[in-house]
């Protein structure tokens, strides 16, 4: 649905200053009906990438196809097929949500009667009916964000671009935005979001591309990315020191165990495995065969924080 090849953009911050390569060759391939996240710190080139794909910035080089239309030769067709929600939204303070929705639909060439219907549906779908006829300046951050989303999809685009969709929202509004975005994906829409929140990328995206210094450092599902770094950790508690020693002996033989540490203070073992999902049954089977019964089994998955730190050498929010 979105394919890019070597997409590039540089800026000259001031006249006479050296150019800054904001995006230096991004390759993307986003499948239909997926949520794809561009994850990276501020200034990594996420927004520039999104703005190029949304026809707002002409790329300096590379090629892209968005929803089947060529970005460079046919930006008009791309515009017809996409929705775009900027980081700061873009609603008029003195207009109501209904008026904004009707105008947005009309700007997409939809006739008046149909635009009115779409506005009504949009208000209902994004839980805004109650405020639909109040001016936007009276909205809370969450309501405004839901209106931005409703505006982005009022013409039923194939692809939706969301730039940092939950910045500045309280946890409840944030969860609500996630729910809405998942709902759009489940209706078949392809969503490309940028975020610098690891938990957002983890919870919301089907695939993630980690962006740093204008390029994609690595790419995959959240699970794959986490495995790529450290795998899972499984802690097994046993009844006493003797049992722990015997368990260590048995488990170290298993091929799925990459590394084993003893935790002598709590009569336990920490095992590093590629995937806990498949390893835990094997571990338990091996223990049972040796006549050992674990006290408890605890699973620790690595967070995307660990992934990001390992790949870029810093944490995404505080960089």
């Amino acid at each position, binding site marked *: 649905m979105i394919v890019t090849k070597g997409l590039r953009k540089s800026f000259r911050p001031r006249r006479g200053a050296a150019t800054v390569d904001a995006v230096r060759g991004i390759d993307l391939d986003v499948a239909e009906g997926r949520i794809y996240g561009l994850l990276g710190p501020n200034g990594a080139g996420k927004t520039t990438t999104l703005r190029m794909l949304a*026809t*707002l910035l002409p790329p300096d080089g590379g090629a892209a196809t968005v929803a089947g239309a060529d970005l460079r030769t046919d930006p*008009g067709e791309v515009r017809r097929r996409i929705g775009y929600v900027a980081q700061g939204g873009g609603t008029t303070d*003195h207009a109501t949500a209904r008026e904004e929705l009707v105008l947005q639909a009309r700007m997409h060439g939809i006739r008046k009667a149909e635009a009115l219907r779409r506005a009504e549906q949009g208000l209902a779908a994004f839980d805004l009916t109650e405020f639909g006829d109040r001016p936007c300046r009276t909205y809370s951050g969450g309501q405004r964000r839901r209106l931005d989303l409703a505006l982005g999809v009022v013409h039923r685009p194939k692809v939706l671009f969301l730039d940092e969709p939950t910045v500045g929202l309280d946890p409840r509004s944030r969860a609500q935005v996630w729910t809405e975005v998942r709902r759009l994906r489940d209706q078949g829409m392809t969503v490309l979001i940028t975020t610098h929140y690891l938990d957002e990328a983890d919870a919301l995206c089907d695939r993630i591309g980690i962006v740093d210094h204008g390029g994609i450092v690595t790419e995959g599902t959240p699970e794959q990315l986490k495995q790529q770094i450290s795998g899972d950790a499984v802690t097994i508690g046993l009844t006493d020191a003797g049992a722990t020693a015997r368990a260590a002996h048995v488990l170290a033989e298993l091929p799925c165990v990459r590394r084993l540490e003893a935790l002598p203070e709590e009569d336990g073992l920490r095992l590093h495995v590629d995937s806990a999902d498949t390893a835990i049954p094997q571990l338990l089977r091996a223990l049972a065969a040796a006549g050992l019964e674990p006290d408890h089994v605890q699973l620790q998955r690595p967070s995307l924080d660990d992934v990001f730190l390992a790949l870029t050498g810093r944490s995404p929010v505080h960089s």
Partner: protein
Amino acid sequence: MKLARDTWLVYQRQLLLMARSPAWLAVGLLQPLCYLLLFAPLLTSALAASGAHSTADAYRIYVPGLLSALAVMGGLFTGFTLLGELHAGIIERSRVTPVSRVALLLGRALRETTALLVQSLLIAVLAIPFGLTVGFTDLLLAMALLALMALMASSVSYGLALLVPTDAALGPVVNTIAQPLALLSGTLLPIALAPAWLRTAASWNPCYWGVEGMRALFAGHLDAPEVWRGLLLTGLMTVLAVAWAARLFARRIR
């Protein structure tokens, strides 16, 4: 067809917003009314050389200049509204739709033109009790001429706002352009009173011909050459200004 539809769409929205915060009308009327009440009476004697023998005569010379200045100044400062919309992301939201780029510009410039016409009509009507006399056809043509001037000035202002996209920088630029433009078009006093070199300089001012046409219309000389010359030249300048701004708008904003 699409251009007309899209322009109407943008224009309608702009009118709605204008009607929702009507403070602009009061603010827009206050200053011209002060000029009308506190400055124009001074002119009776000052304009004696141009054939003004009464307050009514002075108004006939002064009011068309005042209205022209209003149209040009009001138009030139409307770029700030566009900057506000650019910063709020409203223009960007429109840009990601297939809406006509020229319509985004024209719909806004026409809003400004409408606002200035409403103000001008009110001022003209308010000047009648003070002795202004103007025929209906003359007034109609004068309004057409004003509309062209306002459209021209707004387009130029939008173009400038795209070239100089910060409030702090746009202000001085607009002021620098507006002052000689106003002085050299004879909005305060007729250029006919000026020395020859000043009159030559004025004839190169795109607003000068409009102001001359306005004066002829308010003097009741419907068939004077200044009228058609003013309409023609101002019309031409307006087309050029709109084309320039639209090109800039389309290029900056793709």
